[in-house]
């Protein structure tokens, strides 16, 4: 029982109305997905910029006005003015350093000295690098949450880093403390009008 070629062709066309040949596309996509998943990097690296003066600029007379210093000790954070001494101290709470208190205080300082951008962070020799980065974050910017968007507002982005004086923590006299590098002097801290 053989049908003619034409009849069989007609029958075949009736049965399968039309097909896309998707196998090759699926092959390519699968390979692409595998390759891209293997090379994908989901942790994004960013940088924190430090502005350090060249070493030949040895010592400059500290500019008049407020010279902001944030001292990091094992058990407290301290905000100080290099010329006049400690301004505020934030002892550690149960979670560790009181970053919220520090940022809150620095916001007030920024409100009074809006043109000031420089700050020094003074650390003890065994302070972990992680703490330095966290303190830098909280001295540089503060985050305000506006609904779902998080906005970053600048506090003191020009950060220099130095040694904390070895004196007793609370009654530390900052006059003698000299950071490893002097503060960048290209921006003179101006006194606020307020």
């Amino acid at each position: 029982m053989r049908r003619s070629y034409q009849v069989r062709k007609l029958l075949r066309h009736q049965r399968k109305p039309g097909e896309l040949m998707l196998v090759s596309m699926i092959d390519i996509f699968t390979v692409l997905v595998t390759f891209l998943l293997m090379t994908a990097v989901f942790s994004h690296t960013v940088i924190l910029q430090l502005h350090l003066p060249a070493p030949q600029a040895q010592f400059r007379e500290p500019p008049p006005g407020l010279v902001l210093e944030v001292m990091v000790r094992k058990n407290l954070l301290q905000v100080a003015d290099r010329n006049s001494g400690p301004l505020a101290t934030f002892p550690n709470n149960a979670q560790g350093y009181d970053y919220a208190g520090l940022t809150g205080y620095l916001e007030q300082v920024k409100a009074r000295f809006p043109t000031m951008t420089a700050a020094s962070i003074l650390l003890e020799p065994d302070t972990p690098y992680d703490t330095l980065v966290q303190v830098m974050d909280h001295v540089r910017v503060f985050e305000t949450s506006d609904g779902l968007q998080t906005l970053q507002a600048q506090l003191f982005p020009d950060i220099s880093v130095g040694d904390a004086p070895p004196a007793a923590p609370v009654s530390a006299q900052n006059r003698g403390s000299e950071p490893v590098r002097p503060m960048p002097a290209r921006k003179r801290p101006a006194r606020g009008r307020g």
Partner: protein
Amino acid sequence: MLRHHLRHRADAELNLVPFIDILTVMVAFLLVYATQVEVIHNVKAIPLPESIAQQSPHPTVVVTITRSDIYVQGERVATVPQVLAQSGDEIASLKAALQSQQVVGTTATAADPAHRELTIMADKTLPYEVLKKVMTTCTGADYSHIALAVLEKEKAVTAADLSSS
């Protein structure tokens, strides 16, 4: 029964449409991610600190500090215990490596010593003492622009954020 089977086998088809949909979405998503070229290669051995910084890195000389060693552009120049033990602030071998022509030549602005740039990738448990010595050496070797490489902090939307809006 046999006929029943045969009929079904003839119609048996895989429905690949949702599969293709997923593949297309994944390819599009991963291609977008893959186009963000990583300038600094993240090394799994070094846990970087997390930060809210938003500045993207650009190609510079990279000084990598693990818990035990210091590398310049992938070549070991000093060990951390050795650096901790020494009394002065400058690390001689690191300085020599930073000033060697082949490292200096890798930065685009090598001609102008005032604008030489350097990125430090350090372990987050590293004591400040080591970092200070490395940074002093870097400024001593005429690298005035120093950047610290950190990981971008994941931002989780908390209930407090939602209720405050």
